[in-house]
Structures are given as structure tokens and as C-alpha cells.
């Protein structure tokens, strides 16, 4: 008898928990990470240690953000110890920022061009001179929305309220 046979089997052996759904769970995790993260785009050639600030806002739409890195080069024996500007993957001079902004702007949708934000990732030991020059170039290129990239912490080490 068929029914009898089934009963017998069920009694003797504890059914193993099915792991068939495990891949689904892992895939779900995978997709989550794929959607929420962005691939590392550039190799940093300069050392950028962001300063701290606590009155910060999040940069929402990453596709609207262009980055300018300013800091001491990693290879100091080749490029010296003075802070340099890095755009995309190479060192650039201040005069080339206008070009860079134009290229970045062209790569965007026309509707988004006015929302373009430039994020300045500047090393905290850099001097304002170079930053001011960059800001002047940005004004000339009319990229007026800027963001001083910072870490979220109290700069003066006070206790939070």
C-alpha cells in the first residue's frame, strides 16, 4: 500500500531543511548591494583626509556630482609635496578646471545640468590658496553649487547635545 509506505518513511527519518531558498536570499542581498553602491571610479593619486564637520548634508544624486580632489600626491618623490589638483585620473592645473566642468556638464542630461554639484574633496592640511583658486575657476565656469566634502564629526571635539 502506498500510503503505508509514506508513513513509515516519515516516521523514521527527520526531513532535512531545504536549502533551496538560500541562493534566493543571497541573490537578494547581492542585488541590494548592487543597487545601493557605486563602483569606485577613480584611483586616488593624492592623499585626501577630509576635515570634520557636523552641520552636513548628504549628497543625494551621485550622477549629478563631479569630484575635484586636492591633496599631497602619494608619490612625493615624483610629484613633490605641494598639494595638487586631481581631476578624473590625472593631475591638472587650475586653468584646466573650466574644461573639466564643461566636459562633465556635456555628459549629463540637459535637464540635470543646472543641478550639477561639484564636490571638493580637499585634504585638511591643504592651504586655502589653492582652494580659492579652484573656487574662482568654478565661478568662471558657472558651476556654482559646491560641496565641501567632510567627515561627520564635531570638529572641535565637543560632546554632542
Amino acid at each position, binding site marked *: 500500500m502506498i500510503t503505508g509506505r509514506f508513513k513509515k518513511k516519515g516516521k523514521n527519518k527527520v526531513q532535512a531543511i531545504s536549502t533551496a531558498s538560500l541562493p534566493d536570499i543571497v541573490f537578494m542581498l547581492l542585488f541590494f548591494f548592487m543597487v545601493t553602491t557605486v563602483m569606485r571610479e577613480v584611483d586616488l593619486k593624492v592623499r585626501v583626509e577630509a576635515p570634520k564637520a557636523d552641520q552636513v548634508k548628504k549628497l543625494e544624486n551621485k550622477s549629478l556630482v563631479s569630484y575635484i580632489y586636492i591633496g599631497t600626491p602619494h608619490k612625493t618623490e615624483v610629484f613633490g609635496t605641494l598639494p595638487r589638483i586631481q581631476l578624473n585620473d590625472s593631475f591638472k592645473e587650475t586653468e584646466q578646471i573650466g574644461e573639466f566642468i564643461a566636459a562633465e556638464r556635456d555628459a549629463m542630461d540637459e535637464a540635470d545640468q543646472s543641478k550639477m554639484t561639484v564636490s571638493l574633496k580637499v585634504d*585638511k592640511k591643504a592651504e586655502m590658496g589653492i582652494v580659492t583658486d579652484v573656487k574662482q575657476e568654478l565661478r568662471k565656469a558657472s558651476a556654482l553649487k559646491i560641496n565641501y566634502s567632510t567627515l561627520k564629526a564635531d570638529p572641535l571635539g565637543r560632546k554632542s547635545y
Partner: protein
Amino acid sequence: MAKREIQEINAGSMADIAFLLLIFFLVTTTMDTDTGILRQLPPMPEDESTQEQVNIRERNIFVVLVNRNNDLLVEDNVMNIRDLREATKEFIDNPNNDKNLPVKEEKYFEHIGKVEVTPKHVISLKSDRGTSYETYVTVQNELAAAYNELRDELSMRKWGKKYKDLNDELKEAVEKVYNMNISEAEPNKVGE
């Protein structure tokens, strides 16, 4: 007699493959959400000579100077950066209607009603080329903090909520009461 069914493909290793992919993405991606202080730069004047001189009364300006040794000079007094936030708050709010602090005017704001504000106040920030970026950001942060604390206080009084917990409409209203007005001086090329 039923035929023996085809053996199912073992899916046990599927999880391993997916894990491998997952780890690959974890390693190659950055989770860091870029945070920072957002600022709007003033547009470049079309012609330097046509730049009009804006006349602002002395009492409406709050001058913050940072020199190359990262020292602060606020309204002609040397100041510790820790005191900047309170000083800025007092300047923006002018709670005692001081004659040396900005002019107060009663204005009507949507959702809030009539409030005495200082609409003409300007914070003028000037830094040297030798000022460290860290100090500059800290100063910017303290100035922003002064505004945010005043906004917090107002929304606490009004609705018993913090500014950041308000809805967008109320946020905008509060923002108008304490409108951020930080002006950065044109960089000086003389006398560095």
C-alpha cells in the same frame, strides 16, 4: 510502474556562487555616502569695473577674518573658534535689540506669524591664502551651526520639534526666518 524521475540538479552550490558575487561587489564598491557642507558660490561679475559697491551699514555686517596662522579675528576682536558659534547666534538674532547688532524688523512669515528678524544681516568671511582648509571648514561649520541652532530653537518653541524633523513646508518657512547670508570676500591678491 512509474519510470524513475530524472535526478534534480543539485542547487547547493548555487549559494556559494552567489556569495562569491556578493563578496566581489562588497570589495569593489564604496558605501560611503558623500556628506559635506553645501554652499552656493556667487556668480562671476561680468565686468570688474561695473561691480557696484553695495552699501551695508556697519552694524549689519559681522566680519570674520582668518589669518595664515589660523587665528580668528571677529569684529576686530581675537576670538577662540569655540566661541564663534555663540557670537554668531547673538549677531543673527540680536535678542536684546543692541544698537551695534543688526537692525530688527517685524516681518510676517507663513505658518509662523510675525517674528522680529534681522533680514539685512551679512556675515562676511575672509580667509588668507595660507589658512588651512581644516580651519576654514571648521569656521564654515560653526557659522552653519549658529543658523541651525537658531532654527532648532524656533521650531522647538513653535511646534516642540527639532528643525530637521519638520515637514518640508515648515522647514522652508523656518529657513526664511533665519536666512543664511554668508558672503565670502573676493580673494585678495595684494599683501598676502
